[in-house]
């Protein structure tokens, strides 16, 4: 037994990817009685992944960086799985949100997805999670591409599984753009390999500085950044996102908005700060200026578009465009504080946007509300849903005791520290606009009179188990905001490590 446990402990990094992958294959191909219990299998696999991610994080925080050799081949020849504290936290975040989303979808998915499609939906969402974990954990840049494609292919199918036929077109458009992005990334990797002769990220970091000024490396960097910008939906390459998140079933929107784009940004940060050293970004290419301008535009554009939306989910989708702008702004400024803020905002946005999309699904299930205008008096008709929604909205806006305030404060502080005064009004203005579009929902929900028919509590219309994860996420986000010291210190350490200090 102890032998088995020791072997298990050694292989945690591989198991973290393999467990959801295996479950994804088992569900659609198993006999009918088991297939009908796909939700339970998926829940079990996600719980196992969460346990593995926690064990791995515990090990990384106690003993430092974990390196796993796939098949026993030593890096840089073999494929390496490398877990540093930042990767451990991201893995934990992905596993946690995936677990919450699988609890939610176990109760709520049947409302938005037909019964015969359910096993395939569960299989695709497990594949998606497996791909994302792989993207975070891998220390090999070609392996990164493969995991991007696993996650993306599952993502296209998930978006297209929405109940309206528009979901198909949204999924198809996402597929075209996503494939262009992934092919750009593949091309960038090819140029890196051509110039350096290695695919291992740690090895690339050592070899590249000698050839920073060659055209090959510059081309590689350009292709990688454009590819990741499409994947993370950075303005103006965000056009696939609003349709995809609006028409996808709400458990899918919650999972994808929370983890998909965040892991994309994580991979982009890895490329900018780990594959290339920060000096490259600062001295060789004008990437910093370009990313700062684009992400500032994203903050304002996304928030302004969110104000104009009638559909709740579309409003949340545009809000994502705006918040992605904040995260990339912090990373682009690349000072100690701004990067800390960026990492914190990644956690904040992942937890809160998952919660918001779950609330949007709950509103649909309990009162059929899809438009902002349908939410008059919702505070009385679905008090718990609106409470979770409000808590998440406050954190998204950045009202003081929340995590959103801490992250935006750090991003602003970092911008001032690096001398970018011009982006401070953008940060504040973006927060103000965020406040406006959430107030448009919260004000009528609490202070508007409900329609004639709906004075009574309608929350019973939604399954109870769908409400629990939304409340848990809101509570966790609030708790992290109140005890913001611990995550802030951790993020500051990770930022210092990325900046090579």
């Amino acid at each position, binding site marked *: 037994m102890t032998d088995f446990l020791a072997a298990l402990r050694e292989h945690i990094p591989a198991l973290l990817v393999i467990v959801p992958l295996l479950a994804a294959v088992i569900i659609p191909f198993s006999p009918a009685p088991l297939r009908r219990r796909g939700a339970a299998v998926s829940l079990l696999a996600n719980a196992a992944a969460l346990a593995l991610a926690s064990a791995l994080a515990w090990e990384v925080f106690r003993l430092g960086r974990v390196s796993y050799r796939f098949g026993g081949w030593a890096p840089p020849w073999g494929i390496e799985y490398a877990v540093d504290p930042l990767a451990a936290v991201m893995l934990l975040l992905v596993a946690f949100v995936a677990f919450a989303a699988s609890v939610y979808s176990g109760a709520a998915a049947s409302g938005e997805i037909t019964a015969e499609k359910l096993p395939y939906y569960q299989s695709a969402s497990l594949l998606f999670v497996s791909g994302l974990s792989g993207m975070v954990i891998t220390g090999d840049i070609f392996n990164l591409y*493969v995991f991007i494609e696993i996650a993306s292919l599952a993502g296209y199918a998930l978006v297209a599984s929405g109940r309206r036929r528009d979901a198909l077109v949204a999924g*198809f458009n996402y*597929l075209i753009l996503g494939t262009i992005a*992934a092919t750009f990334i593949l091309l960038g990797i*090819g140029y890196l*390999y051509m110039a350096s002769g290695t695919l291992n990220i740690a090895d690339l970091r050592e070899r590249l500085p000698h050839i920073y000024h060659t055209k090959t490396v510059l081309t590689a960097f350009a292709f990688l950044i454009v590819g990741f910008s499409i994947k993370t939906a950075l303005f103006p390459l965000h056009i696939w996102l609003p349709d995809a998140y609006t028409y996808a079933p709400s458990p899918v929107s919650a999972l994808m908005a929370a983890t998909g784009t965040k892991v994309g940004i994580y991979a982009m940060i890895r490329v900018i700060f780990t594959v290339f050293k920060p000096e490259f970004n600062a001295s060789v290419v004008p990437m910093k200026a370009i990313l700062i301008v684009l992400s500032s535009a994203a903050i304002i554009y996304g928030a302004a578009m969110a104000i104009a939306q009638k559909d709740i989910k579309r409003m949340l989708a545009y809000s994502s465009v705006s918040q992605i702008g904040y995260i990339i702004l912090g990373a682009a400024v690349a000072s100690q504080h701004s990067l800390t803020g960026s990492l914190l905002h990644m956690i904040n946005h992942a937890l809160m946007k998952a919660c918001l999309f779950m609330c949007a699904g709950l509103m649909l299930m309990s009162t059929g509300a899809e438009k902002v205008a349908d939410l008059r008096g919702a505070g009385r008709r679905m008090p718990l849903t609106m409470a979770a929604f409000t808590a998440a909205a406050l954190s998204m806006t950045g009202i003081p005791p929340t995590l959103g305030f801490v992250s935006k404060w750090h991003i602003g502080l970092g911008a001032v520290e690096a001398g970018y005064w011009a982006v401070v009004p953008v940060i504040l203005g973006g927060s103000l606009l965020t406040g406006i579009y959430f107030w448009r929902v919260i004000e009528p929900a609490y202070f508007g009179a409900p329609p004639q028919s709906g004075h009574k509590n309608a929350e019973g219309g939604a399954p109870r188990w769908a409400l629990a994860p939304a409340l848990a996420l809101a509570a966790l986000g609030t708790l992290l905001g109140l005890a913001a010291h611990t995550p802030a210190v951790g993020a500051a350490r990770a930022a210092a490590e990325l900046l090579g200090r």
Partner: protein
Amino acid sequence: MIETIAGKYNYWIYISLMMIGFYAIIAKGNLVKKIIGVNIFQTAVFLFYISISKVRGGTAPILWDKAVLYDNPLPHVLILTAIVVSVSTTAVALAMITRIYKEYGSIEEDKILKSRRENL
């Protein structure tokens, strides 16, 4: 001049194929033609990878007692993976197109857009 054009012709083909694929994705209204464009676009990248694996005077990377120099086999292996990915992408896309055809009765982009607008 001649050297850069003729000596590196496979790279010029890669760039041309990529642009042809890109053009098809952007300009064609038929969803199947768009997917063909995506395929050409991906094929261009395969050609690029295979081109960088060539070693002057090298043979195919199969163990052989008469060979001294081998081409680099690693890009070949990478591209096998990428081809599998490309096939899967095409499969998912074609599955979506058949569903779109069932729902909208057309796979022409402008007709789909018109139908969406009418139902808004």
